[in-house]
């Protein structure tokens, strides 16, 4: 599974954080295999939570987290809340294995607030997964 959050700014200045969840299919690992890292195989998109309609928005920062599809939800939730404590970001791009997870953080913002942004993006993913952000409907879904 890949969980991604990215802070975007639209051409008209709208700001927000869009969150995406992909699945890889059944996979168990101690360390994320290279072939399941996002640049090689992000998996299949199954859910998205959009604050700004995507398409040509500028990306200010992003967070990618790869985890086994079977990982228990409480474990993922705790990892998301713990990430800013675990990972001290000092550069605008960081990649790290946090077994069985893999984490990548990229940002163009002021280095003094990178840590806050890391926590914020992880927070947006947690808020999404726990139902505290509105999910974008799947294509073809009808409102009721």
């Amino acid at each position: 599974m890949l969980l991604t959050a990215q802070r975007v700014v639209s051409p008209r200045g709208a700001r927000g954080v869009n969150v995406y969840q992909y699945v890889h299919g059944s996979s168990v690992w101690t360390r994320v295999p290279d072939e399941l890292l996002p640049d090689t195989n992000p998996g299949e998109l199954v859910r998205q939570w959009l604050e700004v309609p995507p398409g040509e928005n500028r990306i200010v920062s992003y967070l990618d987290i790869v985890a086994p599809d079977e990982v228990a939800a409480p474990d993922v939730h705790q990892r998301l809340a713990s990430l800013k404590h675990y990972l001290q970001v000092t550069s605008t791009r960081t990649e790290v294995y946090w077994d069985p997870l893999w984490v990548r953080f990229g940002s163009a913002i002021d280095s003094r607030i990178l840590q806050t942004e890391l926590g914020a993006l992880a927070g947006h993913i947690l808020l999404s997964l726990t139902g505290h952000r509105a999910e974008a409907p799947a294509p073809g879904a009808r409102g009721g």
Partner: protein
Amino acid sequence: MTTPVREELARRISDALSGRPVRWAQNVLGDYDGRERTLEIFNADAAEQRELFRSLRPIRKEMEAVAGGPVIVIFHTRAESARLYSDFVERALLAEVTLDVDTAARILDVEVPPLGTDIALHPRSGAPGTGSSELPRKAA
């Protein structure tokens, strides 16, 4: 010891434990010496507890001073935390991240050179294989 002081200490203990939910014990069964000095730590699996206990050493004296004596620690595993205390745990984790979410939204200067642009994708609709299989971004 005042409630705000106890709560502030619990928050700092949570920080020392990588954001694990923490609270002063409530509704603990039985009467024992130190009941009011009992601290519950959640999402702490057995294999992690020794290391977590070690993380408390730097603030142990302060914990004792605020609590009024030695602090009794109760660890709850992830499974038990989810089974018995899911409401509290979720609330605590959300509180942990919401501060950063709000702070970043307030102070972030987004007028920076972009890392790239995003692209519109479509999530799976029904059968596996119908969702996008690319990242939602392209490099600048």
